[in-house]
C-alpha cells in the first residue's frame, strides 16, 4: 500500500502506541483486500460495546488503546448492555452495570462521544452523500451506504476504533464506485407498509440474495418508504442477507448512478411476504415481553407510541429502546410522561438484543424482523412480529 508520510509516521510508532496498533490493523486489512491507499474518513461508529461480548480481555484491549489513543474524527458507539440511567428498573445486575460503565469510560477517555445507539444518523453523527466513513453496526452501515449514499465497509469493533484513532480507512470495497453497482434486479409485486412490513421485505430479499449468491440488490416496485420503514428494512436485509448496500428505484440516491443489473429479474410476490411473516411467528407463543425500537426508535415512532398508549395501562414488560438524545426530545415534547405513566419503560443506550436478558422472558413481540432473529438466537426467546399497533394492544391486554 502507498502511505502518506503521516500515515507512515503512525505505523512507525511516532504518533504513539495506539495510533501504531491502529495503523497495523488498517494496513493489514488494506493488503488483504488489495487497497492501493488509505482514505480520510469523516465519521466513525463503533460496535463491540456490550460488556457481555467484550469481557475482561476486550476491556483490557480498550484500556490499553486508551492509554495514549485519541480520536481524530467524530465517533459514537453502538448500543451497550445497560441503560446508564435506568438499568436497575430494567432488572440488570449491579456487577454487570459496573463493568459496562468501565467499558464506556475507556471509550470516553479516547474522546469518543459515548452516546450508545445503532441509529447514529438520528443523533448528529451523520455523513452527507459520497463521504467516506467507517461504521460497524450492520443496520447503520446499510442505511449510510444505501439511504444516505455515504461510503463504508462493514467494519468490526477494532477496525472501526482504528479508524477513529487515525482518521483513515483502507480504500477498498464499498469506498470505490465500481463496487457499488447493483448485481441483481428484485421486483416487488406487493403492497408493503409499516416497520414490520418493511422488516419482512428485508428478510425476504435477504434470504433471496443468499440463495442467489448476490450482495447488492436493485429493488423496484416500492413507490414510497418512510425513514422508519427504511431503517427497519436496512436492519433486516443486513441481518438475513449480510447486505451492506442496496439500491431502490426512485428512493435511494444512487439508484440511477450505475448501470442496472442485467440478467433475470427475481420477483417477490405477496405470498413470499406472507411466508416470511409466518416464519417470524413461533408456535405456542405466550407473550410476556414487548419491545419497540430495533433499530432505535425515532421521535416519530415515540410520538406514535405515546398517542396509542394515552390513558391505557401496560400489563406486560414493555420496552421502548432509543438513543438518549431522542429520549430527551421525547421528554421535552411530553411523550415520555405519557409513556411512563402508562407503565412502559424507556431502555436508552441499549436494546432487547444486547442487554443481558437471555432466557428472562418466554415470548417477545416486536415490530422488527432483526429483533426476531437475535431474540431467538442470542436470548432464546420465542418471538412474534407485529405492527406497532399490535404491540401496544398486546402490552395493554
Amino acid at each position: 500500500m502507498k502511505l502518506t508520510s503521516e500515515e507512515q509516521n503512525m505505523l512507525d510508532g511516532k504518533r504513539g502506541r495506539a495510533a501504531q496498533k491502529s495503523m497495523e490493523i488498517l494496513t493489514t486489512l488494506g493488503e488483504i483486500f488489495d487497497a492501493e491507499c488509505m482514505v480520510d474518513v469523516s465519521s466513525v461508529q463503533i460496535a463491540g460495546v456490550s460488556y457481555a461480548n467484550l469481557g475482561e480481555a476486550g476491556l483490557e484491549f480498550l484500556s490499553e488503546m486508551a492509554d495514549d489513543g485519541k480520536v481524530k474524527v467524530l465517533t459514537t458507539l453502538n448500543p451497550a448492555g445497560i441503560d446508564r440511567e435506568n438499568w436497575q428498573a430494567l432488572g440488570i445486575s449491579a456487577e454487570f452495570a459496573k463493568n459496562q460503565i468501565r467499558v464506556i469510560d475507556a471509550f470516553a477517555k479516547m474522546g469518543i462521544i459515548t452516546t450508545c445507539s445503532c441509529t447514529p444518523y438520528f443523533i448528529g453523527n451523520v455523513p452527507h452523500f459520497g463521504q467516506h466513513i467507517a461504521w460497524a453496526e450492520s443496520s447503520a452501515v446499510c442505511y449510510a451506504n444505501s439511504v444516505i449514499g455515504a461510503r463504508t465497509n462493514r467494519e468490526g469493533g477494532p477496525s472501526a476504533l482504528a479508524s477513529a484513532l487515525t482518521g483513515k480507512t483502507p480504500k477498498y470495497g464499498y469506498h470505490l464506485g465500481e463496487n457499488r453497482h447493483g448485481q441483481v434486479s428484485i421486483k416487488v409485486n406487493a403492497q408493503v407498509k409499516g416497520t414490520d412490513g418493511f422488516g419482512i421485505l428485508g428478510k425476504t430479499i435477504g434470504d433471496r440474495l443468499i440463495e442467489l449468491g448476490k450482495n447488492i440488490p436493485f429493488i423496484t416496485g416500492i413507490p414510497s418508504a418512510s425513514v422508519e420503514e427504511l431503517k427497519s428494512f436496512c436492519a433486516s436485509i443486513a441481518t438475513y442477507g449480510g447486505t451492506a448496500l442496496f439500491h431502490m428505484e426512485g428512493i435511494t440516491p444512487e439508484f440511477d448512478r450505475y448501470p442496472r443489473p442485467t440478467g433475470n429479474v427475481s420477483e417477490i410476490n405477496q405470498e413470499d411476504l406472507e411466508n416470511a411473516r409466518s416464519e417470524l411467528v413461533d408456535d405456542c407463543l405466550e407473550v410476556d415481553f414487548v419491545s419497540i425500537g430495533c433499530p432505535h426508535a425515532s421521535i416519530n415512532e415515540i410520538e406514535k407510541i405515546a398517542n396509542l398508549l394515552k390513558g391505557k395501562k401496560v400489563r406486560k414488560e414493555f420496552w421502548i429502546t432509543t438513543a438518549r438524545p431522542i429520549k430527551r426530545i421525547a421528554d421535552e415534547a411530553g411523550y415520555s410522561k405519557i409513556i411512563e405513566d402508562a407503565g412502559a419503560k424507556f431502555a436508552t443506550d441499549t436494546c432487547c438484543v444486547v442487554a443481558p436478558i437471555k432466557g428472562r422472558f418466554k415470548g417477545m413481540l416486536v415490530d422488527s424482523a432483526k429483533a426476531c432473529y437475535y431474540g431467538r438466537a442470542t436470548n432464546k426467546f420465542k418471538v412474534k412480529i407485529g405492527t406497532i399497533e399490535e404491540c401496544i394492544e398486546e402490552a395493554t391486554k
Partner: protein
Amino acid sequence: MKLKGRKIYKGIAGGEAIVTKDGISFYGGVDPDTGKVVEVGHELEGQSITGKILVFPTGKGSTVGSYTLYRMKKNNTAPAAIVNKQMDTIIAVGCIISEIPCVDKIDIGEIKRGQRIVVNGSEGTVEVK
C-alpha cells in the same frame, strides 16, 4: 518442505499442527477459557487448540471473534500461530491485536495433523519438519 504464503502478522512460532477443513468462528465457536472448540458438529469439537499451530481454511461468524482471540491470548489459551488458506478480517484483526503470528495463502492440504511446523509471520512462510 517450506510453503510460501502471505504475511498477515509478524513473529515466529513453532509447534504441533492441528488441522481442520471447517471454518472457525471464534465468537461462540471456541471457549476462550478452556481453549476448546465448542461449535456443535465442528470437525474439532471438544479439542483444544491452545499452544498449537491452528490450520484452517478461513474465519467465519461475528466480528466479536477478534476480541475472543485477544481474550484467549490473555488467558494463555490461544493458539501459538494461525495458518489460513484465505484470510478474513476477523482472524486478521484478532491476530494483530493479540500479536499472534499469522500467514495465509498457504496450501493447507500439504499440512497434516500432528506434524511439527514453524510459522514465520514476518516472511509469510510455513516450514513443515
